[in-house]
């Protein structure tokens, strides 16, 4: 039995690097320190996985050799006039680098999954910049933590515990005890309400709130947690303040806060369903904190307004810096989506949606982004690496994607692989292959190899190298 420590979790953008994995005879038997999502990845990666290269013949996917699959993939890409190379956020920076070389060689478009998550955030950042920092700084110093349109409890379960409200910083205490007592009070309140509902006329509503049920903010020197969302998520149960915004109302609330922190009067009672007193209270907290941070999620980027919502959030942060120190950071989803943006940028100058069809990199999201290319039906072949667009893209884009010659490189049989013409199984990066990943705050971290991949299964980087070599052979370039 071998205990591998300091393992990075290849799941979400938190990139927790304190995992301990117990390996016995090349099998992972236990994992410590991971959340339910990370543990599920380590414990289940080997079940239901695909280990055989497949090729479509007479409408059926049948087994083939790796050489044959690679040759077929290279042929599809080399013959296409506008291939799309998509995915990249669940693999290593080393593989992404080869992918970019391949995209240039075949004159295609290369796009990563930020196109359907934080693409609008990137557009906003390119407009107005971003005051950022590392997560370590936040852990040690932030006394006001705001999650906007993000539910870390479900999507980044250890974010609160490792980097924000529940973490023990050098200058800030963890707020565990406060949250636990709040949860106990809340469940007692629910019990009382249920009982009252059974005996009192008028039900639970007839019971006046007791003293401890009224919201009490912690003392000024203590760290505070604010959640702003369209529904009361599990993360919101922990919050000192929860603000519920009507769907699509984030932009209005952000702009209202910008006005309030400048001491302007708002002549309305509510903004997007939020009472103005709640916003005034939040504006006060923001102005009076010593170190504040807004973490924003897909609630801003996927709702109406998209990049304009993020732009307003960044501008609010900029305004707040007139009074105090305030920062803002996107909650990145896949473990190496930040790495994909970084490698794309240092190789081509652009973070996603890069078009090589003119022989040089061009970038115009809305035109050169994967969903638009697919919805218009422009691409004539696709290579999908470590991603599942059939599950994550909207209907029209998928309809066109599955019509064209489609190659998938992935360790699992995803819905996209089920619709592919060539499927090449790959090793799980961070479990069966090493590499580099960037955490959401742009800190590069090493991914470890802790188990051997099944026989004949190669890492993404190696498969892509071989495809690139084949493409060059076909094109007669050395």
């Amino acid at each position, binding site marked *: 039995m071998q205990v591998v420590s300091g393992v990075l979790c290849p799941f*979400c953008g938190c990139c927790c690097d304190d995992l301990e994995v117990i390996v016995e005879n090349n099998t992972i038997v236990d994992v410590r320190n991971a959340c339910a999502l990370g543990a599920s990845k380590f414990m289940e990666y080997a079940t239901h996985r695909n280990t055989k290269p497949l090729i479509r013949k007479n409408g059926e996917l049948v087994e083939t050799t790796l050489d044959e699959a690679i040759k077929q993939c290279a042929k599809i890409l080399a013959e296409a006039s506008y291939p799309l190379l998509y995915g990249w956020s669940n693999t290593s920076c080393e593989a992404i680098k080869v992918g970019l070389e391949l995209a240039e060689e075949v004159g295609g478009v290369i796009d990563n999954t930020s196109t359907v998550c934080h693409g609008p955030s990137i557009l906003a950042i390119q407009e107005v910049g971003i005051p950022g920092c590392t997560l370590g700084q936040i852990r040690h110093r932030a006394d006001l933590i705001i999650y906007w349109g993000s*539910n870390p409890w479900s999507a980044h379960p250890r974010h609160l515990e490792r980097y924000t409200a529940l973490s023990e910083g050098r200058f800030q205490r963890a707020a565990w005890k406060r949250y636990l007592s709040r949860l106990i009070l809340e469940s007692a309140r629910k019990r009382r309400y249920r009982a009252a509902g059974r005996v009192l006329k008028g039900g639970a509503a007839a019971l006046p709130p007791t003293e401890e049920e009224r919201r009490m903010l912690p003392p000024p020197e203590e760290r505070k947690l604010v959640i702003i969302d*369209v*529904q*009361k998520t599990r993360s919101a149960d922990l919050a000192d303040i929860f603000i519920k915004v009507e769907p699509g109302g984030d932009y209005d609330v952000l702009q209202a806060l910008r006005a309030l922190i400048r001491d302007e009067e708002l002549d309305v009672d509510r903004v997007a369903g939020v009472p103005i007193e709640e916003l005034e209270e939040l504006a006060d907290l923001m102005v009076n904190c010593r170190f504040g941070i807004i973490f924003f999620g897909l609630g801003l980027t996927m709702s*109406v307004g998209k990049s304009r919502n993020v732009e307003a959030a960044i501008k609010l942060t900029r305004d707040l810096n007139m009074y105090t120190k305030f920062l803002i950071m996107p909650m990145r989803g896949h473990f190496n989506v930040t790495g994909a943006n970084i490698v794309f940028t240092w190789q081509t100058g652009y973070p996603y949606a890069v078009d090589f069809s003119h022989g040089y990199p061009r970038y115009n*999201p809305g035109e050169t982004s994967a969903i638009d290319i697919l919805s218009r039906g422009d691409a004539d072949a696709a290579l999908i690496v470590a991603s*599942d667009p059939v599950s994550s893209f909207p209907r029209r884009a998928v309809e066109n994607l*599955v019509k064209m010659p489609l190659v998938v490189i992935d360790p699992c049989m995803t819905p996209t692989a089920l619709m592919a013409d060539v499927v090449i199984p790959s090793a799980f990066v961070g479990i069966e292959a090493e590499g580099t990943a960037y955490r959401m705050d742009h800190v590069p971290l090493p991914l470890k190899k802790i188990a051997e991949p099944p026989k004949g299964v190669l890492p993404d980087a190696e498969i892509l190298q071989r495809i690139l070599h084949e493409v060059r052979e076909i094109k007669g370039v050395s």
Partner: protein
Amino acid sequence: MEFILITGRTIDQGKFKEHAKITEKYMESVAVCEMHIDDMMKIGVRDGDNIKVITKDGSVVVKVKRSKRIKTPGVVFIPFGPWVNSILPSETEGTGMPQLKGFKVRIEPTSEPVPDIKELLLKTYGSKK
């Protein structure tokens, strides 16, 4: 009846997608629509019944689940996954990003079964030649 649909992540969706998306557990975690009890009564469905969610781009059958979290009637939630994505609009308004949260859907009760992943792909995108 018309509702506002929100899509998003859940712990189960994250956990079971790692078990492979062709499993029943994954389907149970994402082919569900969480609704407020008042809305369920309005359209006449009970926990575990099947409903059809319709947009201008298509329709999909999922199971209905009474939500303890949704406090406002009129808003429904479906976790990210191939079921909900098969009815989402593709327009990106020049941003590269379709609107995946907060758009209108129509919901009605149905006796049709919830398709498994293979049936869903076949029904929505046809078979690959």
